[in-house]
């Protein structure tokens, strides 16, 4: 993959009158995994949404997977971005299997993968449970199953570790490794420095709306 996966220059985001991010630079190269740390409200989630092309920055320029963040070309790279956010991206009234099968159907994958990935994330027995009846950790695992199908080149994880058992933590590592192996990258947000340290090459710290390289505790 030529060029950086994420390249932000002077990015600023304002929601209403409130600035959330200010003059932020970030460079993530192919095959790299970056840990994004910072205190509550430092703009980690906002930054992740900007990188995911879901939030248009109010100032600055940026490219993700080669597409400009402010032009229509960003729509074309969305399919290659995988985001696991705070709130689970699941339909609560559908079973886990139906949720994953919906994703497979949308992207034109055969239905045979659905059972396989659910087994892989350890949800084979819970596949017929509705998402709303599943615990937080199970919902997270279902999202990992989704990412296994969409195989994103850029994986964005927002506190994906929160409340997960160690096996599920291994799944996260597996997914991040997959994205890197494809020549993509992963950006992992967490306030648990130690938890994501084994996953990432370096840390970036968000402080009062801007980013600075943090000492890597590898």
């Amino acid at each position, binding site marked *: 993959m030529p060029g950086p996966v994420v390249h932000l220059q002077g990015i600023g985001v304002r929601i209403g*009158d*409130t*600035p*959330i*991010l200010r003059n932020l630079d970030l460079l993530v190269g192919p095959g790299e995994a970056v840990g994004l740390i910072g*205190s509550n*409200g430092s703009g980690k989630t906002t930054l992740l949404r900007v990188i995911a092309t879901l939030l248009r920055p109010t100032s600055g320029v940026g490219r993700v997977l080669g597409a400009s963040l402010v032009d229509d070309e960003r729509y074309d790279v969305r399919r290659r971005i995988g985001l696991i956010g705070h709130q689970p991206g699941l339909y609560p009234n559908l079973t886990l299997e139906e949720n994953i099968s919906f994703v497979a159907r949308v992207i034109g994958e055969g239905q045979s993968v659905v059972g396989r990935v659910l087994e892989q994330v350890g949800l084979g027995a819970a596949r017929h449970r509705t998402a709303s009846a599943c615990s937080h950790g199970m919902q997270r695992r279902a999202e990992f199953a989704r990412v296994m199908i969409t195989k994103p080149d850029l994986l964005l994880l927002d506190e994906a570790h929160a409340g997960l058992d160690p096996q599920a933590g291994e799944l996260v590592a597996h997914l991040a490794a997959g994205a890197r192996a494809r020549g993509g990258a992963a950006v992992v947000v967490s306030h648990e420095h130690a938890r994501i340290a084994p996953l990432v090459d370096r840390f970036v710290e968000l402080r*009062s709306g801007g980013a600075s390289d943090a000492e890597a505790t590898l």
Partner: protein
Amino acid sequence: MKRPHWLTIAAAGTLLTAMVTALMVPPERVQGDLARVLFVHVPSAWLAYLSFGVTLLGSAMYLIKQDLKWDRLAGASAEVGVFFTGLTLALGMIWGKPTWGVWWTWDARLVLTAVMFFVYLGYLALRRGIDDPVDRAKRSAWLGILGVVQIPLVHFSVLWWRTLHQPPTLLRPDGMQMDAPFRGALFMALFAFTMVYAALVRAHIANAKDEVRLAELIASEEVEVAGAAITAPTLGEVD
């Protein structure tokens, strides 16, 4: 105090002249003094349609140019328009009671005006509900266009449904046989109301611009980023 804009003064002047003229012309032959309602009713109806047209223009231009000044025009015109549409309905009812013997009759133009009134209310409710100026502009532009594009269909269907209303009185050669002074006064009123419309729309736009300037002023100050509002907990220092 800020000096009033020249358009406001001109509008006030023409409106005053039109009012005096409207009161001075001899009563209409058939309907007598009651016909004077038309000096307000007809121009209001004209403005209702005009402002709908301007809202459509502003909405379409916003989507093409992405410039918020067109959105302000569309919004201002709708706010002024909803008032005049309401006035048209109210005066139509006041005029209809002695003329037709009922407050409301199900004729095509009346129903169309009422539908327009509700479309306007929906449009303004949407605008009120959205805070972000760009989001509001985009969404209301689409509704503005959808609303106005539907109007011919509403008009056509209602017309088809039934027509009782007297055909337009002014443009028909053998119409209400309006006297020349009466007709003159009506045109005067039309002109004055259009001036009032222009002045009101201008004032609304000026207001909206002031709000934007205020927001920019607040934004330009060095405001702390959102995260700075959170400080480290200070345990053990509570009284």
